């Protein structure tokens, strides 16, 4: 009798309280875990996108800097076939003034080989896509090639430097258009600017418009288009005289 009374007087939890407490704890735990996991995934995605956007920003700055310092030279006497500014729908090349002298610069969308290029492909694609053959990859790089004036004229590539300025572009999305100079543009207004698909005229265009789509490995069908209209300062200065 004494033993039964001792058991009865000892305070504790009933099985219902225990189950209820465990259920509440489980619900809270699962909710917090879900929030945490979602936040982790969003943060991870954002880091990738952030890198791509930084690259886009830097690539556009590099292109703008090169194009704003573009120059024209009269090489017709010695090199009649030399095209000072060669503008194509997916690439363009021109002469630009740099602190290290006049350089020939070529911008194009494409893929490169090598370990660095491979790691960059791995960064901007899904793991399953990274092992595909280069032709079937959904991405391309924005590549900048620089060579000296002498190397370009002599068609040698020994000292050509190649740089990937942006890695995560959608395949074949890099497009360029070229606007010829419009006399008295300040009177005719912005609507007078007419972009052409190619530039094969002597001298420099007034503006180059570059556009590309940023590839999103998580949403391959999305198409976030960037467009940058770059006005060549020197050519504008020349023509306004």
């Amino acid at each position: 009798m004494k033993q039964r009374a001792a058991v009865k007087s000892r305070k504790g939890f009933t099985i219902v309280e225990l189950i209820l407490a465990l259920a509440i704890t489980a619900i809270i735990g699962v909710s917090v875990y879900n929030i945490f996991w979602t936040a982790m995934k969003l943060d991870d995605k954002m880091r990738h996108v952030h890198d791509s956007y930084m690259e886009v920003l830097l690539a556009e700055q590099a292109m703008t800097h090169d194009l704003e310092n573009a120059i024209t030279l009269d090489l017709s006497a010695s090199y009649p076939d030399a095209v000072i500014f060669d503008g194509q729908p997916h690439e363009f090349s021109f002469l630009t003034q740099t602190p290290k002298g006049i350089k020939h610069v070529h911008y194009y969308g494409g893929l490169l080989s090598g370990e660095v290029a491979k790691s960059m492909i791995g960064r901007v694609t899904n793991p399953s896509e990274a092992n595909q053959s280069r032709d079937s990859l959904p991405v391309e790089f924005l590549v900048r090639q620089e060579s000296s004036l002498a190397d370009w004229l002599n068609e040698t590539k020994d000292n050509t430097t190649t740089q990937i300025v942006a890695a995560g572009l959608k395949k074949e999305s890099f497009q360029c258009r070229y606007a010829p100079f419009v006399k008295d543009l300040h009177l005719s207004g912005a609507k007078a600017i007419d972009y052409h698909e190619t530039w094969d005229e002597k001298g420099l265009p007034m503006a180059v418009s570059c556009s590309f789509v940023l590839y999103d490995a998580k949403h391959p069908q999305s198409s976030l288009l960037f467009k940058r209209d770059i006005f060549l300062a020197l050519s504008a200065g020349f023509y306004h005289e």
Partner: protein
Amino acid sequence: MLLEAILAIAIVSVSLTLIAQGLLTNYRTGMRFQEMVRALNAMDNRLGLLYATQGSDDLLEAFPQPLESPYDKFTVSAKTGPINDHLKNVTLTLNWPMGNSQGQLELETIIYYPNETTSSS
């Protein structure tokens, strides 16, 4: 024992929630950064056009105008004030929707324009 377990879970939950909040804030900042990159792009394009046209009147609307694709979610408005016969002060304001709030980028510059602009308009 059970109380201790619940207390431990509560502490872990609060900690994880705080970390998650930090990550979500980072995500929101990232989204703002993306919008800002696109806004800078749109503003650079507009500025280039403004300099090339030497402050063409159709680019200096005071009422917000939508930009062309792919920046059509942005609107731009301009405030101008003459400095002298050849220079004018231009303030460009770019606005765009950003969730429940509104993003804004403002830039002030000086545009040179030849006298013909004023005489023709």
